[in-house]
């Protein structure tokens, strides 16, 4: 146990040191402009982008929670694989447009784009607040990932988490986006090594993949629950497909996913990454199967102080059980460090949202670049402190619920952000009405979903039962998709009505040709971003 802890702490310290040094890596003239601090200067090539976006999307929480879900529910947890397969072809063209228009106009957040495209500060504020609310619990969840590892090592109490986040906060404050970009190299290398070792070594020890799947099948057959199993059943196939589809739609609406994309050098870097990022999906698929290995190995989750088993400790416990101590230490460090990269990027993205779309829009209209960067840095700290408080004061389960809600609500920005890149047909008023209706519908649906396993009556999952709508069926559908449908219908009706009533629409500050501009185009602003804009 001590060997594990020593290696964990050592690796963690080395990586933190890198975070501070990162300020000098690819050093710009000054880091005081928001573009430099928040987007690292926007000159990242294919490799750095791959590590950065990969480190950002495939979070430590994913690596802990997905196998825990597979351990508990079986096939349903494997939705993470189709989700991360379909995402890249889906956003292949969309992200290129987003890159071009952002680089022509100097946009840093999705709300910046909405502001200019629809000429509506109100709609932009709605998008910004939605982004902030959806991102906060996501940051808190990264702490859940670190906590699971610590619990597995027998470290209790909240002090280690506070220290880890204090270090994280200090180096993001110092180095901006450079810190996570540099750390992502170490984190991903560690994760790849650990997972490859795990998926080769553990199945050999357990008697092969066939044995593992059979053991899992036997376990699920023995449980009374209906929705678990090695395969999907009639009731949850649609949930599986809609959850994968809805999650894929939501992913690049999160402001932090866009941060990494905008930091890339040109459109081709993005396109190449859409082919290269699925390497992480393969990794995620293999990680998901760790859940079955844990079943076959008879791993038990750690029992928490409230007497309930903590499902997220399944994978750390499996490593502890199967690997020699020194390697377990490396594996735990990989998960712990893995939590820092996305947490850093998310807090930077949240800070950018606040600074650009709330501070500059509503509080200080004449903010200078240096002021913006300063506010951003402070907000990024506040966001992280908020995340730590979430974990300290609230039940971790609450962050998981909030994250679930986050996915549903961030989807409500799709009509303005993603469709906005393609069409200006929607009226700004229609989009605001659709956003509000989608949020209300989403919240209501989530409210109706119980979780029998934890004995909760509301907000127990994302599988909305169509029986609630009076249909005689056992079919469940991802609530986010239905909420988005409500949103789109209301936005469309609102648009038609407002146009018929001749209600004034906002000005579109973008031009069609700007959506295709690439590096080398005189309109594309690159490294001279510290100049006033």
């Amino acid at each position, binding site marked *: 146990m001590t060997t594990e802890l020593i290696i964990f702490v050592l690796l963690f310290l080395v990586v933190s040191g890198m975070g501070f040094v990162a300020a000098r890596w690819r050093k710009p003239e000054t880091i005081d402009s928001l573009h430099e601090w928040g987007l690292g200067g926007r000159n990242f090539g294919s490799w750095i982008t791959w590590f950065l976006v990969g480190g950002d999307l495939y979070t430590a929480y994913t690596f802990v929670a997905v196998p825990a879900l597979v351990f508990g529910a079986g*096939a349903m947890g494997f939705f993470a694989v189709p989700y991360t*397969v379909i995402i890249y072809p*889906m956003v292949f063209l969309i992200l290129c447009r987003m890159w071009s228009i952002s680089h022509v106009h100097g946009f840093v957040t999705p709300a910046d784009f909405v502001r200019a495209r629809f000429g509506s500060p109100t709609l932009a504020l709605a998008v910004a607040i939605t982004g902030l609310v959806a991102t906060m619990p996501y940051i808190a969840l990264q702490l859940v990932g670190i906590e699971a590892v610590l619990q597995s090592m027998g470290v209790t109490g909240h002090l280690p988490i506070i220290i880890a986040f204090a270090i994280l906060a200090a180096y993001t404050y110092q180095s901006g986006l450079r810190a996570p970009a540099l750390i992502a190299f170490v984190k991903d290398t560690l994760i790849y090594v650990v997972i490859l070792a795990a998926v080769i070594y553990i199945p050999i020890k357990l008697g092969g993949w066939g044995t*593992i799947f059979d053991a899992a099948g036997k376990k699920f057959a023995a449980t009374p629950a209906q929705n678990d199993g*090695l395969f999907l059943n009639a009731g949850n196939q649609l949930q599986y497909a809609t959850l994968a589809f809805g999650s894929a739609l939501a992913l690049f609406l999160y402001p932090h996913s866009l941060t990494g994309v905008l930091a890339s050098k040109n459109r081709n870097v993005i396109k190449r990454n859409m082919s290269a990022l*699925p390497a992480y*999906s*393969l990794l995620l*698929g293999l990680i998901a199967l760790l859940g079955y290995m844990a079943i076959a190995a008879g791993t038990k989750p750690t029992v928490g102080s409230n007497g309930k088993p903590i499902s997220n400790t399944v994978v750390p416990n499996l490593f502890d059980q199967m690997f020699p101590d020194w390697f377990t230490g490396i594996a735990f460090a990989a998960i712990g460090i893995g939590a820092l990269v996305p947490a850093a990027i998310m807090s930077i993205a949240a800070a950018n949202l606040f600074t650009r779309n709330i501070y500059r829009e509503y509080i200080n209209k004449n903010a200078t670049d240096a002021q913006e960067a300063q506010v951003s840095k402070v907000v990024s700290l506040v966001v992280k402190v908020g995340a730590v408080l979430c974990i300290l004061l609230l039940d971790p389960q609450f962050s998981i619920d909030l994250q679930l809600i986050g996915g549903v609500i961030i989807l409500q920005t799709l009509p303005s952000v993603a469709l906005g890149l393609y069409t200006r047909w929607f009226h700004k008023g229609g989009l605001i009405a659709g956003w509000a209706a989608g949020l209300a519908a989403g919240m209501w649906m989530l409210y109706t979903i119980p979780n029998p396993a934890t004995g909760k009556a509301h907000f127990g999952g994302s599988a909305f039962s169509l029986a609630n709508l009076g249909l005689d069926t056992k079919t469940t559908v991802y609530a986010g998709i239905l909420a988005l449908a409500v949103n789109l219908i209301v936005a469309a009706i609102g648009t038609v009505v407002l146009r018929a009533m001749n209600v004034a629409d906002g000005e579109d500050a973008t031009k069609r040709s700007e959506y295709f501009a690439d590096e080398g185009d005189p309109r594309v602003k690159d490294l001279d971003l510290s100049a006033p804009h």
Partner: protein
Amino acid sequence: MTTRETRTTDRNPWNWLLLVPVVVPLLTFLFNADEPRLFGFPLFYWLQLAFIALGVATTTIVYRMTK
């Protein structure tokens, strides 16, 4: 830095190919079964992992053809 000619559109027939890896992995009836197994993996698991290759191949082809 080379100056590329400015594009005025991103339309291209090759883009339609991107629909294949978006739609196929969502068709649960294609893979929701145990047999045939591959290296001990039930169909449900190995086929969905294989779809990753489908995604990579498609995005690579579209990238090359529309460059």
